[in-house]
């Protein structure tokens, strides 16, 4: 019996879809004859049978997707064993062919004397009989944790020892505590106990985590803070909502206010690419949306072309779509500047992380009535916290302040941008 597992027929393939079976269960198949059509992310390929025999079982039906290493087909090649070696031991067409050739063909280029191919292996290489399979990274982890690889049974492909196997061994070894601190470990390994719960990250969470980490590592960002008197902004919002019978959110007004400032300071509407700064001529404003699954950042495209009412409508559509996950890929990509309205959840100042591929992000807090000195008098005014983070590689501090000052002018007097 020969078990044909799905090989990595691409370069780093992880799975493939069965398109159609070319040999039914119970039917015979010859050596190297077409057995099944599978589709990878690149192309459709025909997989040939590695042995001749009867196809006992299909590993999956047409339309199903199977992982590399999973059983593709089981072929009874007459070898009897439950899992035979590859072609060679089984009777094959080769044997028939061989009889038809008069003399046994000489080997092409023998491995005999004068050949280096069977020479001694690189000195010091492991026992060939039962080598321990583990990546160098895992081996290092084992050394650091004092785990003997030879004593472990790997749970990875072909019995490969994985990082999880090492940590499992560590847990068994030290039921009191893990070694206090392991220098240069990329991440602290905490072993779960009955006092804690292990929750795997969702795909969205992994994406968020990955992007945050990369931004944190790549972009040296600074944040500048200020507060703007939002009296007239809030009045404008109320007036617009009443006149048009539509909820014009503060966020929409902020987006509308920021676009002309981005036009004036294009470094804030840019992408750093190697040694170049790409200044974008169009303004695609990403807006942070809190959803039950996590943060999503859909994009108001060409916000410079839209009225404040249109921006408000678009943000409403994007927020709803983000929550029920109905947004198209286009809605979620291409942002050139980000507005994060943490005021919606009661936030004040913050230190937002600059999204990858952009150079700046503005966080808007909730306006709160505050005591403000105006001339000789102390008056009460709704002050709105602003936090602007930007990529300090391409934006100097003075420019950051200029941007903030112009933005505050706009927000303090909506007539300046509602034109």
């Amino acid at each position, binding site marked *: 019996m020969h078990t044909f597992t*799905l090989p990595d*027929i691409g370069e780093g393939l992880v799975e493939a879809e069965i398109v159609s079976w070319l040999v039914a269960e119970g039917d015979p198949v010859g050596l190297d004859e077409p057995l099944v059509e599978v589709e990878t992310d690149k192309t459709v390929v025909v997989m*040939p049978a590695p042995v001749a025999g009867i196809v006992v079982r299909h590993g999956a039906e047409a339309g199903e997707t199977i992982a590399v290493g999973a059983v593709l087909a089981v072929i009874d090649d007459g070898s009897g064993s439950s899992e035979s070696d590859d072609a060679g031991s089984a009777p094959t067409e080769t044997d028939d062919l061989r009889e038809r050739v008069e003399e046994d063909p000489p080997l092409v*280029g*023998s491995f005999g004397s004068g*050949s*280096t191919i069977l020479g001694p292996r690189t000195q010091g*290489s492991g026992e060939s009989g039962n080598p321990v399979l583990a990546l160098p990274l895992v*081996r290092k982890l084992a050394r650091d944790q004092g785990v003997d690889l030879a004593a472990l049974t790997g749970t990875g492909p072909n019995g490969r020892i994985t990082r999880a196997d090492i940590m499992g061994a560590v847990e068994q070894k030290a039921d009191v505590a893990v070694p206090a601190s392991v220098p240069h470990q990329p991440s602290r390994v905490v072993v779960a106990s009955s006092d804690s719960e292990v929750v795997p990250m969702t795909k969205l969470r992994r994406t968020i985590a990955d992007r945050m980490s990369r931004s944190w590592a790549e972009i040296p960002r600074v944040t500048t803070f200020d507060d703007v008197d939002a009296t007239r902004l809030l009045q404008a919002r109320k007036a617009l909502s009443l006149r048009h019978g539509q909820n014009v959110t503060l966020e929409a007004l902020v987006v509308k206010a920021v676009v002309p400032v981005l036009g004036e300071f294009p470094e804030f509407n840019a992408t750093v690419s190697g040694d170049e700064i790409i200044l974008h001529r169009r303004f695609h404003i990403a807006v942070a949306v809190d959803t039950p699954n996590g943060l999503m950042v859909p994009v108001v495209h060409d916000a410079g072309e839209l009225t404040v009412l249109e921006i408000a409508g678009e943000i409403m559509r994007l927020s709803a779509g983000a929550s029920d996950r109905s947004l198209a890929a286009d809605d979620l990509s291409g942002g050139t500047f980000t507005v994060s309205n943490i005021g919606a959840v009661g936030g004040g100042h913050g230190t937002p992380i600059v999204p990858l591929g952009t150079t700046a992000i503005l966080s808007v807090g909730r306006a709160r009535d505050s005591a403000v000195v105006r001339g000789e008098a102390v008056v009460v005014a709704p002050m709105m916290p602003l936090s602007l983070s930007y990529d300090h590689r391409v934006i100097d501090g003075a420019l950051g302040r200029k941007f903030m000052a112009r933005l505050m002018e706009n927000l303090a007097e909506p007539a300046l941008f509602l034109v």
Partner: protein
Amino acid sequence: MRNILDREGRLVGEAPIDIDTTRRLYRAMVEARAYDKKGTTLQRQGRLATYAPLLGQEAAQVGSAAALHPNDWMVATYRDAAAMWMQGYPWEVLFLSRSGDERGGRPPVHVDVLPPSITVGAHMIHAVGIAWAEKLQGTSRIAITYFGDGATSEGDFHEAMNFAGVFKTPTVFLCQNNGYAISMPRERQTASATIAQKADAYGMAGEQVDGNDLFAVYAATKEAADRARAGDGATLIEAVTYRIGPHTTNDDPGRYRDPEEERAAHDRDPVERVRRYLENEGAWDSDWEETVQAKAATTIERAVELAESLGSPSPADIYGAVYEEMSPDLRRQLEGIES
């Protein structure tokens, strides 16, 4: 374009080799095709890494290699198994090289064929250096290097050609223009009318030949090799052929070329052309064909058995393949995987 055997297998020039030799080279082409088919099959079965088929280029490789002396050097690429085998590189070692096994880079010691270059174009300068060394030592050995149309756009091509031209090194540059550099068609590869004409700029001989014509390739290579041996310098041969298969087993040519073009290429099949010639000459019949096919299949199956009988290489093997003396850094890495 030099042409001796037309598509129907009729002579339109003088045959450079006799019937017996032609039969021998026909068998070689059939065997090369059997190897090639097996290569793709083994890859689909997960027994080889990415495989680059040579289907359709048998005459360009077998015809050129047949014109060499047994001790001439060869510096070729991942798609040149047939040429390498002709010069003594065993099929089983070629299979090993395609399975990512370092032992695939070590042919028997008497074979002066370098391991196949994977990096496009990087190897042509090696052939020039080797040829120059032979010239300095006063031997009559030459070096041939195989590359594709895509490699002619690499900077290394210029360096190799220029050096070979100036120093009159005994080098044969054999370009198999198979129409595509992965998906890039020949007409977008260079604005030159032919690749062969590039030889003019480097002050060396250059010729375009029908790469699917065994006789034309053989004759052109023989002349180039003779010229090199006589001290008259290098030659650039452009063998115009066609890559019938995909770039590699990880490529789908349906995305960038017309299937009709592939069907038309079968009319130019280099193996069938020689078969027709032999048949016309009364030197072919179906019994012999069966024997040739059977022997080719058996030989290739044995090569697979041999290659697979060696078992998996040790991970430590990759450290011994590059340097005569291991660097301290590699030594540390090696100790890392052994502990």
